[in-house]
């Protein structure tokens, strides 16, 4: 990362710490929602942006994680074991969802995952004995950390922010490891990757499982944040919204989900000054961005600030004459 990037991250970190002291409760709720959805979008960015596996089911994993935590804490489990179970459950289901990706790709895979999202939605709505159906589940308890309650809006925001930092750091570290390189290889050229010894089957399943785990952990924070969950929150809309965050922020770029979630959570709220037109304006802004900058906001920033240099081929030194004469 260059100096400009580091400075931007530092400013954003300071803003994330200072903002909750300047905002009213609804503002704190919104930035908490940004934090939670950023975690889910980081997961989707891993599956889609880095490993190139199209998933339209991230919303379903947020739902599975949210219901797991809500049901387990309602049954008397402490938050943290319930949170870990939510992540493990989504890892296992994500791994299984990866199997179709071994046979189908691109828009066919999109439809498979879309069908999975619908399946999860129907289970959440119809299996009332387990999920309470359309009546939903209210009042998921917020955790206690080192004896301190996170019941207050500000305390819970900082708890979520801490989780985001931890999970983002773990993802960053993994992407810097040979696994990150393998995920990119999977996206760019799976046939060549296979010929270089990469077990593409295992990496594909791992990309789905890890991305889904992050979705589930985001769900585990979503339930105590909103205090009321019901199946409609985890319908296809949630998955489309998370996809929008990844694409608008910059797919395959580490900070893309942070920016994308910021736009998708906050921009509609800022647009409310336009009253009834706010969603129309929001939709138009997103369309304009996608037409003129399909690489997302971070792609645009890179294009604007990247130093211009000649193409590599032109920079190559002249090869020795001996090479031509052989």
């Amino acid at each position, binding site marked *: 990362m260059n100096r400009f990037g580091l400075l931007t991250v530092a400013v954003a970190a300071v803003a994330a710490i200072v903002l909750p002291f300047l905002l009213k409760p609804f503002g704190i709720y919104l930035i908490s929602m940004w934090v939670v959805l950023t975690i889910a979008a980081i997961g989707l960015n891993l599956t889609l942006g880095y490993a190139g596996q199209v998933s339209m089911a991230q919303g379903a994993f947020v739902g599975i994680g949210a219901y797991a935590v809500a049901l387990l804490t309602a049954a008397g489990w402490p938050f943290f074991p319930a949170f870990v179970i939510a992540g493990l459950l989504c890892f296992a289901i994500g791994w299984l969802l990866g199997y179709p990706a071994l046979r189908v790709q691109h828009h066919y895979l999109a439809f498979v995952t879309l069908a999975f999202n619908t399946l999860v939605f129907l289970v959440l709505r119809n299996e009332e004995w387990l999920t309470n159906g359309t009546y939903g589940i209210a009042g998921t308890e917020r955790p206690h950390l080192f004896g301190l309650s996170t019941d207050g809006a500000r305390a819970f925001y900082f708890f979520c922010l801490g989780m985001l930092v931890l999970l983002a750091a773990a993802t960053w570290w*993994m992407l*810097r*490891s*040979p*696994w990150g*390189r*393998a995920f*990119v*290889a999977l996206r*760019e*050229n799976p*046939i*060549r*990757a*296979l*010929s*270089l*010894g*990469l*077990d*593409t089957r*295992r990496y594909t399943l791992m990309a789905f499982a890890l991305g889904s785990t992050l979705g589930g952990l985001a769900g585990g924070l979503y339930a105590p944040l909103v205090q009321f969950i019901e199946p409609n929150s985890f319908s296809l809309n949630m998955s489309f919204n998370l996809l929008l965050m990844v694409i608008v922020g910059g797919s395959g770029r580490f900070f893309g989900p942070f920016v994308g979630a910021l736009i998708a959570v906050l921009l509609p709220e800022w647009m409310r000054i336009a009253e009834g037109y706010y969603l129309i304006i929001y939709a138009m802004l997103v369309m304009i961005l996608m037409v003129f900058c399909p690489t997302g906001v971070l792609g645009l920033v890179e294009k604007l600030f990247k130093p211009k240099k000649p*193409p*590599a*081929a032109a*920079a*190559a*030194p002249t*090869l020795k004459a*001996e*090479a*031509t*004469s*052989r």
Partner: protein
Amino acid sequence: MTAVLEVDNLSKRFGGIVAVDNVSFTVNDGDILGIIGPNGSGKSTLFNCVLGQLMPSEGRVRIDGRESTGMRPCDLNRLGVSRTFQLLQVFPQLSVRDNLILAGQEHQGSMATRLFGRPDAGLGEAADQMIEFFRLSHLASEQAGMLSYGQQKLLDAAMAFMAGPRLVLLDEPAGGVNLTMLGLLRERLQAYHAEHKATFVVIEHQMEFVMALCTRVLVLAEGKIIAEGAPEEVRRNPAVIEAYLGH
């Protein structure tokens, strides 16, 4: 001489079309075998059957005496078999250095140890040496997609050697490469062969390249072997002249 690759009575049919028809040959340690033939003669299908991309309809393939028919390409690679493809197959968004590290990383430890190990999988120095060997040092940190076609061909070949393979199969390495790069590529392949005593199988249309590089040539036509021998011998073979060289 030890046989590195043995192909016995290998056939591949696609419905009623016989792409490879009962082909048998052996590649010994240190050989550079050239496989030539016109388009549609079954060269690439033969490669794909040997390398696990396609399952042969009949016949067997052995690597170092070990049965490898139908083995997955990634498992074959771990046995020491590497390849390049007819069309360019580099990872355009990774740097030249990362392309080379990627080409060797799966040979370092297990999947779990790679996650907790060094970001370069301990291959940084080896990658730099390979970059130097293939005269790509000035491009080490460039994205592979920014390189010229010829430079990408060099990188493609370098990637095939990164894991120190026992057997390398090169599918048209000279295809579309200008004369300058062609000379450099041939010279580097010869240098690698001399230094590491590696075993190559090369599919190529560029006859001068084949004649200068290969120690033995095998000619395919309509899926069958019609001639085999030293390059000069094959060049003088009337059937080959008539069918493939044209004059």
